[in-house]
């Protein structure tokens, strides 16, 4: 009788759309930003596994890793016996996601976020999926207020600085960010432009192009702390922006993740931007 009742309750719960997860939900996240949101909402006790793009906060290192989100294993994820998998549009292969659904795992795919608006929307979505809608709304309100302040300050600057955005990749190469990148999206949030508007995506750096770019500021994103060595890139040191200290070097997941730390990324970049355009270089 009791088990019958339980199964009825379960059946009803499964039919209801958007049912909120219980505290003992076994959760797997496959996307660094989504994992950050889970931690930010204080729901990390639900996590039983994350993908390899989830490197922040440090505690994620202790969790089982299911591999890269573009190559998700079916059995590996299923072995963690999750109730819920939250991932982003980049997740692949689609076949394994379908198989997980078929095996009874609730698979939720969130759109990727390349703006503060979409980033906050994603915080709300994750909150709702995990049954913490009100906490998420409160967090979003707080983040929104801080973002609004940064937006206002950026507008008040009165010009759009040109920023050289460098992505350190490995020890000896760096990539320059161009159009249609998360880097450009981040700069737009603080009323600034990417220096290389004729580049598409991230491209290996040309030393001459760096010299010719004459940016107002330089942002360097490292995937591993200390990865970028300025001594290998004397061209950067020749730029006025570098000499004047309009520069920022920090973690690439912070800058490009568009997770709950977006506001920190925006604040850090804003700080590196000069109040006035670099007249000598224009």
């Amino acid at each position: 009788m009791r088990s019958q009742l339980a199964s009825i309750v379960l059946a009803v719960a499964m039919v209801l759309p958007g049912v909120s997860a219980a505290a003992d939900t076994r959760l797997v996240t496959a996307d660094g930003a989504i994992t950050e949101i889970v931690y930010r909402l204080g729901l990390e006790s639900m996590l039983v596994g994350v993908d390899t793009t989830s490197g922040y906060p440090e505690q994620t290192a202790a969790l089982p890793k299911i591999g890269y989100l573009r190559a998700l294993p079916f059995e590996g994820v299923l072995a963690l016996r999750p109730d819920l998998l939250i991932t982003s549009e980049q997740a692949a292969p689609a076949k394994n996601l379908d198989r997980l659904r078929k095996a009874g795992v609730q698979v939720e795919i969130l759109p990727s976020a390349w703006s503060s608006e979409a980033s906050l929307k994603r915080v709300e979505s994750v909150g709702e999926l995990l049954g913490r809608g009100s906490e998420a709304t409160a967090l979003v309100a707080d983040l929104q207020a801080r973002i609004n302040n940064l937006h206002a300050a950026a507008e008040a600057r009165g010009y759009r600085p040109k920023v050289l955005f460098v992505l350190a990749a490995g020890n000896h190469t760096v990539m320059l960010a161009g159009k249609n990148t998360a880097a450009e999206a981040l700069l737009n949030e603080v009323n600034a432009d990417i220096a290389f508007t004729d580049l598409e995506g991230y491209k290996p750096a040309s030393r001459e192009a760096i010299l010719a770019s004459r940016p107002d500021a330089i942002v360097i994103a490292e995937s591993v702390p200390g990865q970028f060595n300025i001594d290998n890139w004397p061209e950067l040191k020749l730029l006025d922006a570098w000499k004047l200290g309009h520069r920022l070097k920090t973690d690439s997941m912070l800058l490009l993740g568009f997770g709950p730390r977006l506001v920190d990324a925006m604040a850090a970049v804003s700080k590196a931007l000069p109040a006035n355009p670099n007249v000598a270089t224009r």
Partner: protein
Amino acid sequence: MMTPSGRLDSTPALLILGSAALAVALVSVSSGAYPLSVADILRVIAGKEAADPVASMVLLEVRMPRFLLGFLVGAVLAVCGAVLQGLFRNPLADPGLIGVSAGASLAAIAVIVLGNTWLGGWLALTGDWALPIAAFTGGSLTVLLAWRIANRSGQTAVATLLLAGIAINAVAGAGTGLLTFYASDEELRSLTFWTMGSLGHAGWDDLVLGAPFMVLALVLAPWLARPLDAFLLGESVVGHLGYRTDTVKKVAIVVVGLGVGAAVAVSGLIGFVGLVVPHLVRQVLGASHRVVLPFSALLGGTLLVAADSLARVVVAPAELPIGLMMALIGGPFFLALLLRTRVM
């Protein structure tokens, strides 16, 4: 059991390798990241309801097709390697040599990188099959091209075929490089993983798509055994022994084009098998293609399934790329065999 030359007879070898293949099959189907009890496995095999509701799905829809696909891909790559090594009389020949892998890669990577832009129509048309169909077509077309170039007045010049393959490899490689240059970060990761091979998505649908071509290649290959033995004596001898040299070459090219094209299409690039497995077989059983071809198939399939079984548990819950695992297992194994034969 040893022949006077110190080599193993084929009957005991067949027994040993056959049991190894069977053992690997059992391990591959019964082990994986998701734990299944022996009782449940037996229940599913007997067609009964298992205690774990997903047991039958894991076994029948994931592990079974993965094992079969892995075995077939390994067998086909090894046989095609043996065929090309025989045809070119060159131990360094591997299925990539006449451009199949390069052509398939170029097409596959084009789908990965341009799928959202220029090739949107292709994706809309073929859906989930966009990449495998493109890879297969790309691989077959490059082989056809290499063969057309090498074909002068109805005769296929083997040396020209080899050189054409090298040139096509270079051009396709440049195309792949160009696409890599324009790829976004996610696309880059995707294509890197593709070039290391994977059976992680394998399902019955992959078998339906790839198996007909791979089976056809395996069925045609034995016909090549005797003529390829004649090739060992020199190309001119082949005709004197009563084989139609050019037909032999054509069949060999069709076998490799279809077989490797389909294998690459469903599993990505898996190196090592095609190059080394035929050598392993020759070291132990001698150079006759009547032995080398069937045993290469058996050993290639067994090794690939063994590598895949390991690849999916060593870093569980994640999976290592199969090509990586294959080289990790096969390389030292081959070295050990080389050292052993040198001592003898």
